[in-house]
């Protein structure tokens, strides 16, 4: 009736020492990215392939999005698969490689120097992802517990590896002819494997576990999740095939529809969880995370406009292309991280501080370890900044874009204030 003790020992929680560096790094990257955005406004809406835009996108996608996800998933994946993290050393290595690689890469883009340093930085990021992939695979193999969420995460990391390898090839392609076409030509492929294969698959895989959990909802629908899994991967594979075989632009609608359906299904999944929730009051962190799910519809909308434009005029509308990227990185991914940080980090800090003391007395509520007041203002600055920025870009109103970027910097400063508050938290138990 009771599990054996060896089985039980495999459920150990990942050490906070592994996880916290990723969170700290992600928070700093967000600040750097918003500041870069503020100082790059003169070039932001000229073309997406400008040094500054590349620097901003990579500090957002790698420094912010990927580092936060890696941090959280080192903690969450063992919980999801009912096992434990295979190796702390691999986790540290993964952090170290990325922590060195990302700033060098971003600096290389910013100064548009694609030389040896930038190439090495790219390789470092590949090493980081390989470490993570090995760690993940070994953790999963050791745990006999298989579930749909784990498949989402593992496949997502495979796509991430493909994304960064392609990225490195594109870097080398500036100096040597390693690819048949120019690096600019491969940008849509690199970007979409990253966005759809890595971010979308991962967010849905982890979100479909966390959202019902945080809402305290009993809703689950694995069949629907498998459909989503098939649609996203099928859509992405079709997109890659269409790109490599240079199929007509019209064909791009097929993966778009597949991805759109998967997002609608995921939205439906979240809605059903929301309806079946036990906890009636939904906190601010969950609201912004659920809003992020809604924001997922925006890139689909922009993409539809872009593809129609491509089919009609054979060229993409630059304002919509820029907005598309902005909505993904500063919208969807940022919103979900802003919300989920304060649904995960306080618990990690709580565990660090109180697990030894818990029996002694009344411990503080994990959600009281950060300032709800700062969180609220961060969310307000974020939402106003985000929507003003899109309006400003789409209608080319420079003043709006300037105000919006400034609001986003304030948002990231407030975010960092709360992170610092969490990191500095000390036990208040009076013994």
């Amino acid at each position, binding site marked *: 009736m009771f599990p054996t003790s060896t089985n039980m020992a495999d459920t*150990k929680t990942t050490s906070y020492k592994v996880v916290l560096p990723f969170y700290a790094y992600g928070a700093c990257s967000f600040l750097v990215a918003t500041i870069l955005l503020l100082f790059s406004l003169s070039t932001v809406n000229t073309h997406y392939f400008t040094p500054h835009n590349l620097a901003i996108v990579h500090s957002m996608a790698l420094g912010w999005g990927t580092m936060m996800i890696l941090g959280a998933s080192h903690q969450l994946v063992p919980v999801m698969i009912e096992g434990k993290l295979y190796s702390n050393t691999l986790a540290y290595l993964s952090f170290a490689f990325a922590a060195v690689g990302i700033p060098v890469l971003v600096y290389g883009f910013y100064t548009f120097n694609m030389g040896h340093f930038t190439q090495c930085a790219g390789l470092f990021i590949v090493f980081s992802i390989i470490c993570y992939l090995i760690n993940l695979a070994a953790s999963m193999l050791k745990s006999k517990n298989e579930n749909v969420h784990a498949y989402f995460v593992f496949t997502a990391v495979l796509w991430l590896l493909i994304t960064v390898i392609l990225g490195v090839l594109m870097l080398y392609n500036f100096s040597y002819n390693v690819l048949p076409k120019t690096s600019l030509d491969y940008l849509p492929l690199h970007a979409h494997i990253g966005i759809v294969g890595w971010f979308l698959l991962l967010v849905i895989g982890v979100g479909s576990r966390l959202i019902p959990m945080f809402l305290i909802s009993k809703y689950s629908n694995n069949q629907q999740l498998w459909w989503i899994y098939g649609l996203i991967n099928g859509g992405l594979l079709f997109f890659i095939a269409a790109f490599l075989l240079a199929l007509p632009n019209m064909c791009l609608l097929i993966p778009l529809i597949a991805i759109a359906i998967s997002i609608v299904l995921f939205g439906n999944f979240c809605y059903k969880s929301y309806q079946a929730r036990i906890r009636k009051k939904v906190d601010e962190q969950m609201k912004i995370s659920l809003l992020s799910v809604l924001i997922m519809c925006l890139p689909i909308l922009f993409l539809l406009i872009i593809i129609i434009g491509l089919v009609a005029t054979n060229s993409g509308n630059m304002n919509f292309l820029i907005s598309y990227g902005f909505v993904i990185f500063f919208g969807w991914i940022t919103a979900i991280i802003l919300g989920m940080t304060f649904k995960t980090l306080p618990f990690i800090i709580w565990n660090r501080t109180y697990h030894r003391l818990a*029996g002694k007395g009344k411990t503080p509520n994990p959600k009281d370890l950060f300032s709800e007041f700062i969180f609220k203002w961060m969310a307000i600055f974020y939402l106003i900044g985000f929507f003003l920025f899109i309006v400003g870009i789409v209608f080319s109103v420079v003043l709006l874009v300037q105000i919006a970027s400034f609001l986003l910097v304030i948002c990231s400063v407030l975010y960092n204030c709360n992170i610092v508050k969490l990191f500095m938290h000390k036990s208040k138990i009076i013994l």
Partner: protein
Amino acid sequence: MKTINANTKIATLIKEHSDALEAIVSISPKFTKLRNPILRKVIAGRTSIAMAAKIGGCKVEDFFNKLQTLGFKIDSNTAVDAEETVVNTLPKFMQEIKPEQIIELDVRPVIDAGKDPLSEIVQTVKSLYNGKVLKIINSFEPTPLMHLLGNQGFEFYAETIHADLVNTYFHRKENKVETVNEQEKNYAEGWDEIVKSFEGNLVTVDVRQLEMPLPMHTILEALETLPLGKALFVYHKRIPVFLLPELEQQGFNYRIQEISDAEVHLLIYKD
């Protein structure tokens, strides 16, 4: 006759010469306490001439003058031991002190009754954790105690309110190893007491084999039907951190006992 200096203990003087006691008492009325044999036994052994001079508000030379007449040889060249110098600037812990952190202990009645307050002080000192500060109210500056606790890793600060009222504050310096041991001991006690108070009123649930997020649902369901006055005892694999805010929101109190890395016991109850 024995050679004495500023560091010589009062007990040594009294032992050496039968008239030394009265000679010292004549220096300051504060020393009349020494006539009490019990108090003399405990205090005199811990107090040097330099310390006594401070307590009595007189000079070391006053002692030397009186004692010389009894035939003691005086060595006035030996300096007062470094540790005997008492800090008079406001230390950091005093600047940060909050009223709720202070534990007051008035030792005047104990001393007036001719008893040694040391054991009571030592008992109280054991509870000085997490920034708590012991405030000793006394009729003189308890220099011997300051040195005794100073050697045990305490910071102290004495403030003289008036000639007959001195408040002395003690604060444990950060000492990680010692603190953790003490905390772990206390923490087990807290758990046992509460479990004992619910003896015979425990509803047990084992969620160790359940897959996420079922443990949380099972616990919340069990709490819904938990009869008044009973407590829920949960066997869990890990501390269910995400459950804790929910418990708090529903007005439940909880205690957690970590058995090992893979086993945690929880006790959930309403006050």
